[in-house]
């Protein structure tokens, strides 16, 4: 995990593609897209089952290892309005059963339609509006907000890494901008969009084991590495 400081708050960048806020025992993830393979299947496109279950298993690991009390999904928990009986609904309920003490909140994303919200386990708290949680504002779409530093998702940011330009790979990334931060997509079947960092942005490549800084510019005033330098 990599520690950074944002508006005086310590945040940890987790290699499982999550952001941890230790003081509030909160974990943020974005764009889980549960049930995406089921959506494909419903339309006659045979994608095997598995990614949704795997995403929930990674959430298990994340919640256990961080001892989080609260999980905030920054939008797109699900991929589309589910049909009752789809296996991931059951898997989600089992996840909630395993973590009875965990509060799960979702800032509804563009994929989280109201009809869909009605189908999933009722223990999940839905927010139609941005949540103010000082010094942060939690929402799905990127943007700035006078009330605080915005944590969001939606874009599925990714970065291309590799020293030799003949040998490169694209990996998910955290994208910290002066007034908001975009989390990488958490889901296993989501894909990413390569983003270009501008001066003042921080980009963190998310590897299987750790998170590494991929920017050379001065970090924005809002985000300072706790050690004052880039580290991992």
């Amino acid at each position, binding site marked *: 995990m990599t520690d950074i400081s944002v508006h005086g708050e310590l945040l940890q960048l987790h290699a499982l593609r999550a952001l941890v806020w230790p003081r509030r025992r909160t974990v943020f993830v974005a764009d889980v897209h549960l049930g*995406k393979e089921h959506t494909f299947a419903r339309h*006659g*496109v*045979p994608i095997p089952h*598995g990614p949704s279950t795997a995403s929930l298993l990674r959430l298990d690991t994340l919640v256990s290892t961080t001892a989080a009390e609260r999980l905030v999904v920054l939008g797109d928990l699900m991929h589309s309005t589910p049909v009752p009986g789809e296996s991931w609904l059951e898997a989600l309920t089992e996840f909630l059963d395993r973590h009875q003490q965990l509060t799960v909140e979702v800032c509804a994303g563009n994929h989280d339609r109201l009809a869909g919200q009605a189908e999933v386990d009722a223990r999940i708290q839905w927010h139609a509006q941005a949540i103010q949680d000082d010094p942060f504002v939690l929402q799905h779409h990127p943007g700035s907000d006078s009330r605080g530093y915005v944590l969001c998702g939606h874009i599925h940011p990714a970065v291309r890494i*590799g*020293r030799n330009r*003949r040998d490169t790979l694209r990996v998910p990334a955290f994208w910290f901008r002066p007034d908001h931060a975009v989390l990488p997509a958490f889901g296993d079947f989501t894909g990413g969009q390569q983003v270009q960092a501008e001066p003042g942005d921080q980009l963190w*490549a998310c590897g299987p084991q750790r998170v590494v800084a991929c920017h*050379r510019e001065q970090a924005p005033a809002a985000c300072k590495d706790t050690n004052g330098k880039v580290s991992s």
Partner: protein
Amino acid sequence: MLDSAPLNEARQFADAATDTWYQQQGWTLFDFQTQCRDAWHAGESGLVHSPTGSGKTLAAWLGPLQDAVARQQHHREHGTDADHPAAPPDGLEVLWITPLRALALDTQQNLQATADALAGNDALDVDLRTGDTSSSRRQRQRRRPPFALVTTPESLSVMLTHVDARIALERVHTVIVDEWHELMGSKRGVLLQLALARVRAMPRWHDRALRIWGLSATLANLDEALSVLIGPGHNGTIIRGVVPREIVVDTLIPASTRGFPWAGHYGQKNASLVADALDRAQTSLVFTNTRAQAEIWYQTLLTLRPELTGDIALHHGSIDREERLQIEERLRRGTIVAVVCTSSLDLGVDFSPVDQVVQIGSPKGVARLLQRAGRSGHRPGAISRVLCMPTNALELVEITAARRALDARQVESRHAPVRALDVLCQHLVTIALGEGFDEDEMRDEVRLTHCFAELSDTEWDWCMDFITRGGQALRGYPQYHKVMKVAGLWRVMNDQVAQRHRTHIGTITSDIQIAVAFAGGKRLGYTPEAFITRIKTGESFQFAGRQLELVRIRDMTATVKLSRKRSRSVPRWAGTQMPLSSQLADAVLETLKDWKAGREKSPEMLAIADYLNLQEQRSLVPGPDDFLVEYTTTPDGHSLFFYPFAGRLAHEGLAMLVAQRLSSNREITFTLQVNDYGFELMSEQRIEFNKNTLAPAFVSDDLARDILASMNSGELTQRRFRDIARIAGLIFEGHPGRQKSARQIQASASLIYEVLVDYDSDNLLLQQAQREVLDAQLELKRLETALDRISKRRWHLVETERLTPLSFPLWAESVQSQTVSTESTQQRIERMLDEIDDDAVALAQLA
């Protein structure tokens, strides 16, 4: 057809009508045209091969046309009721398949003109049906079917999705496939094989036999081409057309032989020679090998001859269709000075006014040079002349070699794909959508095609499972099965699936294309998404022969405006670079050998004597019996250069194989580069340079296994998988310029690939991707041949202090290269993250 005295009389009438028409035109029938017509009358199928513009169309058209004329005449004189087998045409009887939509209109007009001449105006209708045909016209065709229909493999497939396909096709007795050599090697050819098997299996009106005729340019393996077309179990005739015109290959050689770069593809340095050549001719076709090269040459020629603005045009596959049609029309009328083009103008349409063909760069294949040369000199008795403009020094050797191979008529073979399960899955849904099928009958029918003759029961069962239950994925959702059994037949019952399938039929696949258009709506053409997304708003780039500035990208359309800024950015379209053919590669080695022996004194070889002498002085000029390996240390590292002369695709596989084997028992990472002559392995460490170390890496034992192991974390397979996924119906992409319709079920091929690898690793489409990488991507057969030859050739290991003329192009080229290592993706990510840490500053993001 029936035989009776009155009918025979009618046939003589048709023959006489043909002769009269020919005499009126001042023509005489060629022997091969009569042969083809007679074979058709005898009920045979076959293949006609003859150069473009030599009368193949008429040869194939005469038989069915005369038969129709005879039946009409018979009816006029004796009266026949509509159900009589010799009744005059009343419904679709001839399908004319063309590979290009662009050719369809021209062909239709041609066929109609002949029909009008022989049968009288409006007596026999020839119509057109492609992806561009309006639905009202298609409706009309269904109500009043024409006698003949000019169409594409995809449109034929779409016809099979209609429930009444059988009624529409029951009277068809002849299918003529134009430019079969272009189709047979591709999956579009497979799609056609399957469609033809279906048409053949349908009950024919009065048991008419189905005759299938292919029209082809010269190939080395005509027997195979015939067998693929008509099915392995059927007999057919091969008819040889006229002997090709004499072909003269000349080269534009600059006065100073120092003028040739050692490497590079664009070669505009000596462009003034081409501009001068344009001045000397009426109408020129300037062929390039890639679309990017065409864009650059178009600009270069305009810069040299600004007064020709408007008289020079650019034509390639990504230029908007309307604009291409206009250019083709101007070519036909001879109102244009030059067209810079790619293989987009290799085929079909006869541009008689063209009196000069220029080839930029090596043609890379003998058949291709033959085809392009044949685009000029259509006047009777004229010589076909092609003027070659080498872009680098080594291409001078290739041009001499091509001339030698051409004189010896050593043309290439084309091979057809086998067991293309993606196309089979698509076809099965097509038929299920149409009249439905019985599983046993369908399996037998499919096995009659060349592509699926060896299809195993396991593969068949897998395909059925894939289209019905959706593999393991859909087992729990019977309501969502794509294809289901209704009254004993497999059918598609879901309207959404039906509609999506119809719009996605076809196997012509490419990268995702973004439409490029002005704000006013005028569309310029299509560019790869990967290119346009790298351009920022306000930046300029070259496209469709214009300097453009990007305004915005939305809904698969890039809006642009004209820019005054000069930009060197040109879109690069993937997969357009052809490897040097085996025939030509062998000819190159023979040419080099003869040059060394003083027997080859072509102007090209004289022009690069200095260059070759330098190669001989620093190292060695290899011949057919030599295997040259060079070793050079440069500031970049230690480089091994191998020269198997097997073409860039086979070299890509060889390079990975050899790198893998050399690194298997020592810690070493190689950077690879390949070209048509050889490949380079570069490493930061010193490499032991002796035959004992190197030779074991070239043995052919465990070849396929070792190559698969060496492939970069399956990246090649993943790239290959994209087309397969699309054909098999796993991905649906929005069409350029059209609103995306099914956003929720869009995912990139690489994402689906990863999910399948993780959760359904037995998926046969993954295995097919791997097989295609070996066969098509890396040309495994050629690679095997190369290894076999290397084991027999004399090895020459030369350590050179400086780069040689042969090694320099490899060293200079970095576009095609990649690193090979045995790491998994996870390990690679970790290593790259380590490197970022090592670099202290985080790594720059790559464009």
